[in-house]
């Protein structure tokens, strides 16, 4: 097995290396400083197309206009903030943007409650610091630092989970475009092409709300849940296929019918109404995002591949649905049961086996 194939998940720029190379080879438009390709090629990379005989797979299906806005933001060297419900492909989009623009999506700071200012700026190799005193060599540069030096894009995931002092550290970087290192009495100016793509979760509102000062330094793009059934099914099918390739799941890809059922259930529970809009549905507490639907199907495939016939059965699906929908035993359980009896049961014979399988888990 080649070295690369052992890696669980390759960064985007390696996974889609061929496409990036094709786009760069066919480049005809003006390339902004620090970028690897023109904004239009980035758009093609994200939304798909054909370049010089190479098919570019669409990475973000749905609202093309939002991608245009995101790319244009980065052209104007503004920082970009992607906001949306969990599982609306924020990180996914941010990774691919960085991959296409710089050929490097790995300068990432993961925002957590434990993220400190050092993760944004720099820290020290303390052994060397004590032995030799402050020097460039003793410095551990953060991804943001490295991005400034090289004039590329740094990504900050889940920025709203960082404490506010950490967020504040970004303000000066984004407005002055330079980072001061008082210990070495120097300043690092950002090279052209430096920018930041941050993502934030709408469900985390209030955890560490972003200050107005910081928000003002970002252009904000809100990523919606997929607008229609067809788009969402397309996303789910593509991603499940990609995942199963990566994970050797040993199971057949879910059939159209199965994807449709899962997406229908997710959309109905998320939208709190049936697809025809005729019936209200109680929403469970969890987020039923497209990403969850994808992982549910991948899980079911794993179940089927490892313990079953290799084809997803209604029982596998029911188990997956149970886990995805019922996050809080009491409340979600009720909502789920209500959905089963009020909506799914009445859907006729095509849905009957799935209904029975679900019902078995929820007597």
């Amino acid at each position, binding site marked *: 097995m080649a070295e690369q194939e052992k890696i669980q998940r390759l960064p985007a720029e390696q996974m889609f290396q061929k496409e990036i190379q094709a786009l760069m080879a066919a480049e005809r438009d003006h390339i902004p400083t620090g970028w690897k390709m023109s*904004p*239009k090629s980035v*758009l093609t990379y994200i939304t798909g197309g054909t370049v010089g005989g190479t098919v570019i797979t669409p990475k973000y299906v749905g609202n093309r*206009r939002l991608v*245009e*806005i995101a*790319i*244009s*933001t980065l*052209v*104007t060297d*503004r920082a970009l*903030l992607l*906001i949306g419900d969990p599982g609306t492909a924020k990180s996914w989009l941010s990774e691919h943007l960085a991959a296409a623009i710089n050929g490097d999506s790995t300068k990432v700071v993961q925002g957590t409650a434990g993220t400190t200012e050092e993760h944004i700026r720099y820290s020290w190799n303390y052994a060397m610091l004590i032995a030799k005193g402050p020097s460039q060599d003793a410095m551990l540069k953060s991804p943001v630092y490295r991005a400034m030096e090289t004039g590329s894009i740094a990504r900050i995931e889940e920025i709203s989970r960082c404490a506010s002092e950490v967020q504040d550290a970004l303000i000066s970087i984004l407005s002055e475009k330079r980072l001061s290192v008082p210990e070495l009495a120097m300043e690092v100016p950002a090279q052209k092409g430096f920018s930041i793509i941050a993502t934030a979760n709408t469900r985390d509102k209030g955890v560490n709300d972003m200050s*107005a000062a910081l*928000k*003002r330094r970002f*252009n*904000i*793009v*809100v990523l919606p849940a997929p607008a229609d059934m067809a788009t969402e099914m397309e996303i789910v099918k593509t991603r499940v296929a990609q995942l199963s390739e990566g994970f050797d799941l040993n199971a057949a890809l879910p059939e159209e019918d199965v994807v449709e059922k899962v997406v229908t259930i997710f959309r109905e529970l998320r939208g709190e109404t049936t697809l025809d809009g005729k019936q209200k549905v109680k929403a469970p507490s969890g987020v039923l995002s497209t990403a969850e639907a994808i992982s549910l199907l991948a899980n079911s495939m794993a179940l089927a591949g490892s313990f079953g016939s290799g084809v997803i059965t209604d029982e596998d699906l029911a188990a997956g649905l149970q886990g995805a929908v019922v996050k809080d035993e009491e409340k979600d359980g009720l909502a789920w049961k209500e959905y089963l009896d009020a909506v799914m049961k009445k859907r006729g014979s095509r849905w009957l086996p799935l209904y029975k399988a679900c019902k078995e888990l929820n007597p």
Partner: protein
Amino acid sequence: MRQPVLFGVRHLSPGAAWQLRRKLDEVKPELILVEGPSDLSDAMISICHPKAKPPLAMMAYTKESPVQSILYPFSVYSPEYQAILWAKEHACPCRFMDLPAGVFLSLQRRRQVEPDRERTTTDSVYNRLAELSGDEDHDTFWERRFEHWTAEDGYEQAVSEFGRQLRGCTMGVNLEDAETVIREAYMKRQIESAIQSGIAPERIVCVCGAYHVEGLESMEPMTEEEVRALPSVNCSSTLMPYSYYRLSTRAGYGAGNKAPAYFELLWRAMEEGNLEAATYWYLTRIANFQRQYGNMTSSAEVIEGVRLAKSLAMLRNDTVPCLQDLRDAAITCMGHGQFSEIALAAADTEIGSTIGELPEGISRTSIQDDFYRQLSQLRLEAFKSDIAKPLDLDLREKLGVQSERAAFMDLYRSMFLHRLRILRIDFAQVGQNRQERATWAETWTLRWTPEAEIQIVEAALLGDTIASAASFALRERAEASASISQATEIVRDAFLCGMPETVAYALGILQGLAIDEAAVDEMARAAEQLSILIRYGDLRRLDPSPLQPLVSQLFVRSCLTLPSACNCDAAAANSLTDAMERLNTVALHHEFLEEDRWISVLLDISDRDDLNTKCSGFAAAILLERGKIGEELLSREMARRLSRGIPADLGAGWFEGLAKKNRLSLIARLSLWRQLSEYLDTLDEGEFRRALVFLRRAFADFSPKEKNDVAENLGEIWGISPLEVADAVMRESTQEEKDLLEGLRDFDFDDI
């Protein structure tokens, strides 16, 4: 061969208007022909009047009802409007060249019979075009291609080619196309006749939709014979102010556009020779609006917006951002990614609340003139705005003002607005009064819209002034009314409009209907309505005396029919008690009615045993209230009605009627409750249950407080202290009691 200049445009397009003006400057034509009804050319003088401000619309309408109308809206950035203006500025003759309005209206009438599919087909071409070019929609497609075209040349050819191709895709599919052919042949005839009159062809500029360019090139002109064969209807025309809001809804000829205010910005920017200015204006206007409404928006955000919009345009190989780019930039930089945050600002900047203006006396119908004259006389001009505003009226005479007019200003306003209401002109909506029965106060909501203007023009068929039209409409409706309630409504409306002759006319009709009327509740209702008018008539400074005989007549007839009407079932009893209540109010208010007659009718109903007992009970209640029944008589009646042997439902029904009125005084009469208690004591188990069910119904609409008082009364009779009563009422029912109550549910009502 020398050809006239056929300049293809899109209606309501700033880019086309700008290019057209340059073309006119270059050609310096001797004649300009504009697509528009050829019989309305006279309106051009008014359109160019220095005091007339677009948006305006020409309106042609049929002279017979149902009124059909056709609208030709112009905004400042309409190529047609600019062509007319250019002609005036350069003293160049200018005419409309399309079919006369009467022919259009006639064709429109025919088309209504056969549904029109034309829009869907061009729309499908538009949609496919936008899809292929990767634009969001056709408007964006068009704006990116044609609205930003400030290059010296090429525009004319490009637009004509666009029209030609579009024609190739859609022509020959629909009935509408036949109309197009007729129109083009007619226009061609106009062009030919202009050439024959001796004007050099190359000095004629024809302004027409891009779609028609090819047709005008290739079509044979219409012959004299064909012109005579055109169907036509009799019609008139007028000019009216128009609004950007209405333009944005895409109504009328030549459709409209979604963002008139933005297009005006674009037009002004082009006129200044700096197309990019529109970008700055748009974003600063949004920012200004946001600040005005308390949303912090910094200049930095506007700057970022401009940069983002430009780089969005760049992605499409465009140098100037289009509306879609601007709006997305505003959403991203000022709206924090949410359209909802800037939705109001966007509506203000893109659509706006601009309405047009026409100076007084300019080719309007007389009813329009009357409307505006009244508007200024009644000082309502501030309400000529596209934004709804409330107006509170106090109809009472104002003391301490000089003129009579000022003293009754609000009254005159009210009459005016009521007349508009009668004419179904949606300029004013009457609102709920805050204070109930405050007949001196009225609340209105006023909003001028082009629709209202159209309705005014349509009302021109009814009369030359608002007053005469309203009077005509009311008379017409009065003649058509079939029931006295309808006729009463019209009397009331005429009264509110302050039109005594119409009141008299409608009264005559009402009287005629009343003679044949037999339903007591209808008569009572009419009598009550008229009685209100008599009582408050002086507020509207109208003489109420003509109403009196009719009220008397209705009252007497009601008195005569009421007793026999009371012989009815339970369902009808409710409407009868309502009627009795109404008649009682009427009788109380007017001295000219014979009170004795009313009392004797009530006594009769109260005494008789063969009528619905609820009605009898209610008659007794009225008598009791008016002090016509003494304590003794009441207790005797009570004993008679509630005695063992009389079916419980009848007794309880009577009690229900009695308890519908003056409850407090009933509750205060302890003797009455003692009698009730004694009656209950006489019943055996089965009878008691039966009585309980009906009495419960009788008490159903008592308030909790009243029920409590009744309970205390009974408690006193049974020797229980109020505290114990409260305890008994408040505590949870025991299981046994619950079972008993449950048992009542199974009560058999079948014999009722």
